């Protein structure tokens, strides 16, 4: 067990005019997830600390936050990954609700704007819709996105303009546009072919660095640019 020092950004909309940092100390093993430390603080030191979490197993995407400057899932990040002095902040560029909780309305608006659902109007076959393994490989990685918003919140293009569709929604667009079973490719390409679409990506790679699932998001956006070029 070692003492871990936490600096957590706090904001109570009922009392505070702007966010401030508060310090906490937690006893933890090197293998303790940061999320467990936040639980320790909330359950035993300060019950008013607010943060989102659900599964605790890196699949729901609720506990994305900025830990030592980088967007990560608190449940997936171990103390030994980030050191003994840990700074925890809410995700950047989204409106702050309370402490580590941000308002993700904008994020989901962008997500729904690209038709994030499978479209195929041909009558369903008796079994599943067959797909070649190499076709599936194209979208395997993109389909493993858990919508944690780490990428979009890390993107300088999104910081500058939150009308930008953003890496997360563009990745979802890629997932369906490159799905050989899907039939709404044209509609989706038309939806993203605007000044707020892939053209706003400047190949900065922050999304790739932030993604807790190691998805090659920058590559997906580059493939979308080429696809739009072929239209």
């Amino acid at each position, binding site marked *: 067990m070692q003492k871990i020092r936490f600096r957590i950004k706090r904001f109570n909309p009922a009392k505070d005019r702007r966010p401030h940092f508060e310090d906490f100390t937690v006893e933890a093993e090197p293998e303790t997830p940061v999320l467990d430390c936040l639980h320790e603080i909330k359950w035993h030191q300060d019950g008013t600390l607010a943060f989102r979490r659900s599964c605790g197993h890196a699949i729901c995407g609720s506990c994305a936050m900025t830990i030592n400057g980088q967007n990560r899932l608190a449940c997936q990040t171990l103390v030994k990954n980030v050191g003994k002095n840990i700074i925890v902040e809410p995700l950047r560029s989204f409106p702050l609700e309370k402490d580590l909780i941000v308002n993700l309305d904008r994020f989901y608006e962008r997500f729904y704007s690209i038709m994030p659902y499978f479209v195929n109007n041909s009558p369903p076959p008796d079994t599943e819709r067959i797909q070649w393994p190499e076709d599936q490989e194209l979208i395997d990685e993109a389909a493993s996105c858990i919508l944690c918003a780490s990428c979009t919140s890390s993107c*300088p293009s999104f910081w500058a303009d939150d009308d930008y569709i953003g890496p997360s929604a563009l990745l979802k667009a890629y997932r369906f546009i490159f799905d050989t079973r899907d039939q709404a490719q044209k509609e989706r390409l038309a939806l993203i072919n605007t000044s707020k679409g892939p053209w706003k990506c*400047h*190949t*900065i*790679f*922050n999304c*790739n*660095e932030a993604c807790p699932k190691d998805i*090659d998001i*920058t*590559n997906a956006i*580059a493939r979308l*640019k*080429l696809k739009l070029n072929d239209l």
Partner: protein
Amino acid sequence: MVSWALHRLSGLALVAYLCLHIFVIHNLAYGPERFDRVMELLGSPAFKLMEIGLLGVILYHAFNGLRVIIIDFWGGTKIQKQLFWIMMVIAAALFVAGAAPIAGHLLNALAH
């Protein structure tokens, strides 16, 4: 992100240089004497030093830009960091090759 931020800054520096360049060239319109006077000013050690800086800025912007073009058209997102350093090694070699003669002129001018 640092490579991108430097790309932006070097881009701004190039815009500033372009303005200066157009200003210098526009002196041609006032005849050879005036243009020669301006060119003499540009031959001064301070401007030679800035010229070396300009070379560095151009090479950074060109070769990082090339890296982004390669990534956008052909891929290479997984090796983007290695690509960055490969580009920087090429840019550094060209920088040394280009800056050496300018530095020679600069030292000559200072010696006289």
